């Protein structure tokens, strides 16, 4: 079984993000980047499927992103991915979800696949579109926001998180699945594995190698970021002191009367 995991590199959840000089992107200085947490669930699921199949599978990680994204791919290799593909071209800076789906379609088609796993959403731009657009482009069935996944022969059984409950769906392979929090707990890459990943080859087809060029990417784009603005600053918190019972009463009062959230 050929499993392909699409993963993006995003700013660390703890990073302090500020708007860059162009007013349309973030300032990356001093920011550490991580594998998008939802994509990490996708990768972990791919690795677990492979393990459940007794190793009768390959997990390939694909990442579209600037040179810094190599670190995400090496992390994926250290976690256990069999291969990694890094796609980048300066014309991809600012590409939207529609254009990324085009690039990923080309990449996964070149690799060949039986199952494509993506994260439900990237925590930086929060568009939550790439996986589904990719499925549409490929004409494949998809299950979104999956919290449990089972491969049964040539089909998948996926548990989807829906408002207030769980929906269980069955879909034939090949298919696209996007991972939701709760699907699994990603493993840590071990130190020996990190060192081994350092020496592994990473595929770098480039746009041309995928049969694409800057013009095709631009044509596929459906939206453009006009501006970015920081969220309004949060005001300082307040400490409710005193005996626990008394403090709890005060807190409940404040939440009801001042914050009006109860």
């Amino acid at each position: 079984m050929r499993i392909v995991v699409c993963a993006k590199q995003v700013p660390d959840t703890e990073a302090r993000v500020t708007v860059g000089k162009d007013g349309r992107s973030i300032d990356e200085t001093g920011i550490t980047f991580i594998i998008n947490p939802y994509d990490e669930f996708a990768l972990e699921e791919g690795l677990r499927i492979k393990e459940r199949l007794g190793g009768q599978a390959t997990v390939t990680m694909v990442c579209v992103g600037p040179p810094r994204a190599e670190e995400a791919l090496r992390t994926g290799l250290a976690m256990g991915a069999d291969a990694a593909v890094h796609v980048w071209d300066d014309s991809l800076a600012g590409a939207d979800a529609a254009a990324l789906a085009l690039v990923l379609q080309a990449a996964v088609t070149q690799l060949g696949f039986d199952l494509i796993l993506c994260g439900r959403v990237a925590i930086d731009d929060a568009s939550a579109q790439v996986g589904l657009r990719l499925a549409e482009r490929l004409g494949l069935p998809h299950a979104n926001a999956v919290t449990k996944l089972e491969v049964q022969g040539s089909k998948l059984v996926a548990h989807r998180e829906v408002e207030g409950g769980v929906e269980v769906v069955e879909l034939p392979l090949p298919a696209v699945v996007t991972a939701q929090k709760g699907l699994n707990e990603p493993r840590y890459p071990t130190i020996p594995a990190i060192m081994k990943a350092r020496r592994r080859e990473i595929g770098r087809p480039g746009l041309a190698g995928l049969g694409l060029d800057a013009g095709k990417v631009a044509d596929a784009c459906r939206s453009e970021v006009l501006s970015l603005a920081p969220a309004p600053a949060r005001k300082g918190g307040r400490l409710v002191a005193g005996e626990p019972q008394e403090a709890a009463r005060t807190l409940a009062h404040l939440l009801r009367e001042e914050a009006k959230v109860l």
Partner: protein
Amino acid sequence: MDFNLPQELEILRKMVRDFVNDRLQPISEKVEEEDEIPPEIIREMAELGFFGLPFPEEYGGGGMGELGMAVLLEELGATSAAFSNVLAPHVELAGMSILFGGTEEQKKKYLPPMCAGEKIACFALTEPNAGSDAANLATRAERRGDRYIINGSKIWITNGNIADIIIVYALTDPALRARGGITAFIVERDFPGFKVGKVDRKMGLRGSHTAELIFENMEVPAENVLGEVGMGFITAMKALDMGRIGLAAGAVGATQKLLEMSIQWANTRVQFGRPIAENQAIQWMLVDMAIGAHAGRLMTYHAAWKADQGLRVSREAAMVKTFCSELANRAADLAVQIHGGIGYMKEYPLERAYRDARILKIYEGTNEIQRLVIARDLLKAGK
């Protein structure tokens, strides 16, 4: 000049940071209260490769060198000191003694299980009358045929109560002492005549233990002389150089964590109608911590990098040990001050950090001894 860490060490840093946040921080209170690290946590640390991180891959190590070890210990500095206190003497003191002083057979025999964390090791140098003056040790090793008979005792040996492998420094020639009279031995805990004495009650570092070790006619095969007879003191000093760099890294990590907690608190604690962070007096405390952390981090990475080049680092190791241990103590004091009364309370981890920082100026050679090392080197070199 490139100040970036190698990519694999950035990946390491993230992995350790996640592990600290997900696995260690949630139990740090429990470790403090129960004075014990859950065995499954030690196992997880072992599986991740913490116990062999700097050693060459051919001995089962991670091959990340001292710089990698500095990154690991820096990140562990953000949580209870217990975890790094089990790890650091095992790796930096006992493991490095074998790596620097051992024969090829000894490295092949002992390092792999130590790197895998299957065997825990300790470094036994200090005695009641040999602290700063380590060469004044009284533990005696005498050759009898194909073995040595060792008599004496060691005190305050970290991991002494749990160690499977004990690096014991003993006197083989009282006339020579530090100049060829001290020999290191690889002792296994089931060697006849080895006994663990009392386990100490300490100010802090709860969850990590020090113990007295007693050797009564302990029999050690001659092949367990670590390297060559008479080389023990040199080996100990080389290992201590690594220990000091590792200690400094942990101190930087602790300082960084104290700074972050203090910023958080200063921004949220309101007095006189505004966050206390708006007072210059508080700001300057934060600034001093930040300057220290920055300086300490750079000098520690430099020392670790230099060690990885195979260069002598005694002076730098003593410098970073002194600077960073004093930094962490000052940071702990400032953090408690910024937090006010809550900083003094057990329900907050600051009083623990305050107590745990104190040891940094004492073990692995007191800061007075570090200054003595630096002074001797300075005066000898004339610069």
